């Protein structure tokens, strides 16, 4: 459904997308993962014919984005990072306008608007001026706009950014429900968003493709090493951070200790374990033995930076013949 080959995009001197190739099958939900500035948005803008590539080619639904942009645009629904809304219009007006732009007419248009409103749960705000909607509603109106012409391909740029947790869950469910009929490519820099929704993950960093893998494989690779957050305090309020760190580093199974926070005699460490080793039991024992107060001990939420470090490291290792 989507075929990208050797795609590059250069803005002046900076190379935003560097020789990326991937393919997405019909009906798949693909997560496009990368930190800010990785080239996610640029790639999506190329796929939606907003920007032309500097080199390489991209095909969407069998049409080339450079040679037949109108055909591609007819088949793609696009939700940019900021929903492209006109604050002066009401929702009904807005969807009518977008529907007409996408080539829908009268009866069909009305049916599609009804359908999109229902799917995105915005039927109750159809008469409300867009500028008065909350962020969550705006995002959903943006999504309704993207699916209004029932496109074969949906390109969603950070569909959950700026939403509160409840809205994030709702949006995810919505996207999941759209799968099957549509091929979806969505970008995010938040790992859980991908976990919940996507079957296939494309990781890019600094414009380069890091890995394409199924979610399961990727998660397995990520679970190599455990990471925990440990907060401790001295019993008499006279704990020395450097001393504590030294002792923690000696605990068996620990590969790295970093001080994250220090406040009024209490310290928070982030501790990375060696692959395949469990940390909590051993750490708990050491803390108690040292007579420190244990304030908290929990698995750390993995942020994307680490995922990337690990992924890029893993790529190098497999590249040089090593296996873990």
């Amino acid at each position: 459904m989507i075929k990208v080959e050797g795609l590059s995009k250069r803005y002046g001197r900076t190379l935003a997308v560097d020789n990326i190739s991937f393919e997405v099958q019909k009906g798949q939900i693909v997560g496009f993962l990368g930190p800010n500035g990785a080239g996610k948005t640029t790639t999506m803008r190329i796929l939606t014919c907003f920007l032309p590539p500097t080199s390489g080619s991209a095909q969407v639904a069998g049409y080339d984005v450079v040679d037949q942009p109108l055909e591609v645009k007819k088949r793609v629904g696009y939700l940019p990072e900021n929903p492209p809304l006109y604050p002066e219009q009401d929702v009904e007006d807005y969807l009518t306008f977008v529907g007409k732009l996408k080539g829908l007419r009268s009866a069909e248009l009305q049916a599609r608007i009804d359908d999109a409103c229902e799917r995105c749960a915005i039927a109750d705000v159809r008469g409300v001026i867009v500028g008065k909607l909350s962020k969550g509603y705006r995002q959903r109106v943006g999504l309704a706009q993207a699916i209004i012409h029932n496109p074969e391909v949906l390109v969603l740029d950070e569909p959950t950014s700026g939403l509160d947790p409840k809205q994030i869950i709702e949006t995810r469910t919505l996207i999941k429900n759209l799968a099957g009929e549509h091929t979806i490519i969505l970008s995010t820099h938040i790992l859980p968003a991908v976990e919940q929704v996507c079957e296939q993950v494309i990781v890019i960093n600094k414009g380069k493709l890091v890995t394409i893998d199924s979610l399961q494989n990727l998660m397995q690779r990520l679970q190599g090493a455990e990471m925990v957050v440990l907060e401790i305090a001295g019993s008499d309020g006279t704990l020395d951070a450097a001393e504590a760190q030294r002792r923690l580093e000696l605990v068996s199974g620990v590969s790295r200790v970093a001080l994250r926070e220090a406040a009024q005699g209490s310290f928070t460490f982030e501790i990375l374990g060696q692959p395949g080793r469990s940390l909590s039991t051993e750490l708990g024992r050491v803390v108690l033995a040292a007579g420190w107060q244990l304030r908290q001990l929990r698995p750390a939420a993995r942020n994307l930076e680490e995922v990337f470090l690990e992924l890029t490291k893993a790529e190098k290792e497999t590249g040089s013949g090593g296996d873990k």
Partner: protein
Amino acid sequence: MRNIWTIWRKELKIYFVSPIAYHLLAFTAVVFGFFFTVATAIFVSRGMQSMRMGTMMPMDVNEWVIRPLLMNISVIGLFVTPMISMRLFAEEKFSGTIELLMTSPVRDLEVILGKWLGALTLYASLLGVSAINLGLLFFYGQPDWKPILVGYLGLLLQGGCLLAIGAFISTMTRNQIVAALITFDLCLLLWVFDWVSSYETAAWARVMSYISVLTHFEPFAKGVLDSKDVLFYLTFIFLGLFLTARSLESLRWRA
């Protein structure tokens, strides 16, 4: 074609739900109403004067009232076009809706024409407000309507030409105020360029005078429909919209 219509309607709707259209309509009504009152008052007092002196010169409403008023509207036009055209593309770029337009199955030209026609329609409705005043003259006298019609055609052409420039300027920035300022600068220059012709007859002065949009309006105000002035305006509109199209295309490359 249908896309042009769709975009035209959206543009007009946005003008008329925002204060822009109402401000401009009110502004035109007040300013032009003032000009109209002054012009007719002068006409009446002159008439009385000549009656008292017993000379009874024939006085023509078209020449004494309507022609200077048409020139006045033409100048008001210079002030209102930047306010109409500033948002055309700058607003879409700022709010990100340009991504919607440029990723929809619509040609750039359709977007440009829809927007330009929307702006022109608002401008025409301002002309309509001024025409109400002139309409009053028909209650009290028998002005010739044909020169008025020609005058308004000229105003529409002049407006179309300045709005095309404004549209072009608006593609170059995300900031509506900057777009308005630069458009206003250009409008003003295109107005005053003509002045050099009053003391200089060299080729450069003739060129400057030629590109001045107001030079070409004067014949219209007199009720003279000259194909070379019509052609000037049409060329200008074409050039403005062409530059807009190129600039919009280059957005894709620069982004």
